[in-house]
């Protein structure tokens, strides 16, 4: 079968303006939220109906054409980076909320629905969807499932995998699958969990059943300022030791505070070395009781000040700075490189110190934004992409940070996914046995490896080239990809 014929088949199965073939028109799709990597796909498909998704997959399977699924394109690990000669299957038009069931506390949505749109739609019946990645205004549910997205409220409410009851979609063969649904559990091995975080390599999702929760009766946000970063880190462990699980517990360091403050004017103290944002929710009396307890812990941990926001507007303002922290850092440096390691809580102070040392060594500034409650670090390495060599330096710095996380007993990615970006770092976290097991598991879903190839799991060859986890400064880990 020749290429023009395949194009005709695709066109026949897609709506008007649903097949993009002109390279100039494809260009805006070459990167997702991580612009350090770009690749031009062969064509872009924009279906607006589920049946078209199945058709595209069938055609591609028949002709061994790789397929990369993309939602809102906000991912930060290059998970939706196109592959050359492949189809980029964009599901942004599948953006309907099919129903909100206030009795069963569920929402059934298409994959292109924005994360925040679910909570907005559910608010009128007193419900919300808990996972709230910082990109929740823009990121879509399909991508959330593919990356197992987290957010600032994971500590209490869990990740995406904890808040999804079922997915429907298609295997690469075009065969429909339905895993889970409206019941609380699935029969046999937990395939629903495996689909989460599989980075689009197992199932192309066309419908998701989300679990909704009641909006808490009462909520407050506290902000504590610390003159010493390690005191803030200790305060996090102390809060938990006191038996309190806050809805969210976030930490920002000096540089991140300053960037966010300049953008939203959230009232962050720019002279503090670190701030903690703590959200408590629940029944009115419970929140007040916890507030007293947390205040006691914070002051005992040498907080300089504690501000409590009770009104919705004040709370939103405090959170706004945190939620916009990543791009706000874009205001203080031309570019930033966002890392996503997790570490045990007890290692926080040590790892932060190590990052500080690395920052000096590489001569690159770093702003730390941190889901402190669940040990998920987001160091943002500042650099200037227009200066030759700075990106490479930033990447080497990033790899060193991830190595420090693994060393501390953590993981190279907490919520952004491996994508294309952390393949080498994966070699440090997993050995041959695990990597081969991953490959076999993937083949159970997609034997030809056509879905999002080259992401998420490194090949053994790659790992042996990298030589374990240590990528030394100056080494280019992604020689096969065009840079920018």
């Amino acid at each position, binding site marked *: 079968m020749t290429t023009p014929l395949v194009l005709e088949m695709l066109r026949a199965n897609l709506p008007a303006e649903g097949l993009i073939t002109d390279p100039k028109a494809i260009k805006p799709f070459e990167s997702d939220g991580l612009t350090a990597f770009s690749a031009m796909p062969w064509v872009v498909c924009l279906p607006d109906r589920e049946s078209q998704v199945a058709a595209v997959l069938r055609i591609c399977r028949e002709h061994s054409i790789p397929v990369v699924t993309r939602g809102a394109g906000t991912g930060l690990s290059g998970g939706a980076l196109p592959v050359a000669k492949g189809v980029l299957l964009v599901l942004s038009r599948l953006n309907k909320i099919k129903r909100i069931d206030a*009795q*069963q*506390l569920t929402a059934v949505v298409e994959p292109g629905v924005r994360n925040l749109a679910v909570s907005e739609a559910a608010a009128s019946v*007193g*419900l919300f969807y808990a996972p709230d990645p910082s990109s929740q205004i823009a990121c879509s549910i399909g991508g959330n499932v593919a*990356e197992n997205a*987290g957010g600032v409220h994971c*500590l209490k409410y869990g990740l995406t*995998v904890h808040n999804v*009851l*079922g997915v429907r979609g298609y295997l690469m063969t075009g*065969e429909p*699958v*339905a895993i*889970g649904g*409206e*019941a*609380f*559990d*699935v*029969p046999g*091995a*937990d*395939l629903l*969990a*495996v689909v989460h*975080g*599989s980075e689009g390599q197992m199932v192309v999702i066309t419908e998701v059943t989300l679990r909704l929760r*009641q909006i*808490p009766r009462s909520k407050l946000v506290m902000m504590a300022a610390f003159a010493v970063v390690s005191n803030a880190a200790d305060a996090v*462990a102390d809060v*938990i*030791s006191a038996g309190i699980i806050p809805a969210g517990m976030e930490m920002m360091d000096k540089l991140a505070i300053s960037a966010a403050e300049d953008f939203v004017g959230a009232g962050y103290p720019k002279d503090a070395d670190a701030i903690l944002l703590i959200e408590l929710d*629940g*029944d*009115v009396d*419970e929140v*007040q*009781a*916890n507030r007293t307890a947390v205040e006691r812990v914070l002051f005992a941990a040498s907080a300089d000040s504690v501000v409590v926001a009770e009104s919705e507007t004040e709370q939103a303002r405090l959170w706004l700075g945190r939620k916009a922290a990543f791009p706000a850092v874009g205001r203080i440096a031309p570019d930033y490189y966002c890392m996503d390691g997790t570490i*045990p*809580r*007890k290692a926080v102070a040590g790892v932060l110190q190590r990052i500080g040392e690395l920052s000096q060594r590489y001569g690159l500034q770093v702003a730390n934004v941190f889901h402190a409650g*669940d*040990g*998920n670090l987001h160091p943002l390495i500042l650099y200037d992409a227009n200066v030759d060599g700075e990106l490479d330096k930033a990447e080497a710095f990033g790899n060193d940070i991830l190595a420090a996380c693994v060393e501390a007993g*953590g*993981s190279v*990615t*907490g*919520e952004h996914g491996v994508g294309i970006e952390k393949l080498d770092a*994966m070699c440090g*976290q*997993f050995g041959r*046995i*695990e990597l081969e*097991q991953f490959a*076999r598991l993937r083949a*159970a879903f997609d034997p030809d490896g056509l879905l999002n190839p080259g992401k*998420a799991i490194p090949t053994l060859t790659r790992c042996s080239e990298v030589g374990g986890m240590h990528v030394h400064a100056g080494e280019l880990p992604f020689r096969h990809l065009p840079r920018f």
Partner: protein
Amino acid sequence: MSDDSAQLVDAVRYARARQQTLAIAGLGSRAAVAPIADGAVLNVAEHRGILRYQPEELVVTVRAGTPVREVIAELARHRQMLAFEPTSFARDGSIGGMIAADASGASRPFAGGVRDALLGVEIINGLGEQGRFGGEVMKNVAGYDVARLQCGARGSCGVLLSASLRVAPIPDCERYIRRALAVDEVCAAMSELRSREPSLTGLAYADGVLQVRVAGSEPAVKAASARIPGDGGDSEFWRQISRHAHPNLSSPPASGGTLWRVSSAPNAPLTGDELLVDWAGGVRWLALDSPPRQATSAPGGWAMAVGGNRAGSIRGLDQATSDLLSRVRLAFDPDSVFAASSNDARGEAKAVQG
């Protein structure tokens, strides 16, 4: 406390080399309701002990053969508990069995189940290779979620060696409320409570009585129990269902037939024949002469026989998912070293640990 992992790896390799099948066994606590499969027994019960536990990290890592009761007792010394409510049968089971059987109790719809608390595992696959998946941190999306996959896998995806589980503070306070209710009002009452009470940890119905359990901080529990209509109850009902000791759950059922556990949409209408309704309506126990059909027709609904000659067999799996499960099993155990439970019609569900 002993480390048997090397012997267990050897045993799997030995069996594989000789094309033997292995039946993974823990403490055998579920043998009465879901018998261990045929094959040479691979005993994991001696591989036990708590490996790491730091209360402020909210994680405990234990060997698979460790009795659940032992873990609970250790956590309780620090006013903590497993972040979900494990169930067991009359005898105490092991951590490995709990995971393999996805033994999640009454708090499942509210606090989550085993899979929600499982952060990482070490397993031996069917090739006799020992691998570590997930970890001890709350958030971790490096690699596919092989850890959670093990929940409910009944050993089909490997022998569990150890697991890291999330723990939670023991709530300050727990209260029980009960109220007589006609069966046709149960679903509405349950969903009404679910949508407005944040402190629920149990919502069940048996013998014409709606059973409610709330737990949490003192103020929250007080506020909730003031809002929920009914009389004060006690913990006995909840203890019985978590130990599978409630009279309505006896197997074989007093009324004859086979005991079936049906997992369904919580709002699916009740027939009135349910022996017991748990999980806020999401689980119904029925005594049936033939496998249930209707109850499993809603999206995601399914059923499993507990005890009797069909023990462990599953209904409600569509062909595509069933095929997928087979392929996933083979991805871990290409030579089918781990024995399929003899009663499972589709050959997917495996011998039950525990």
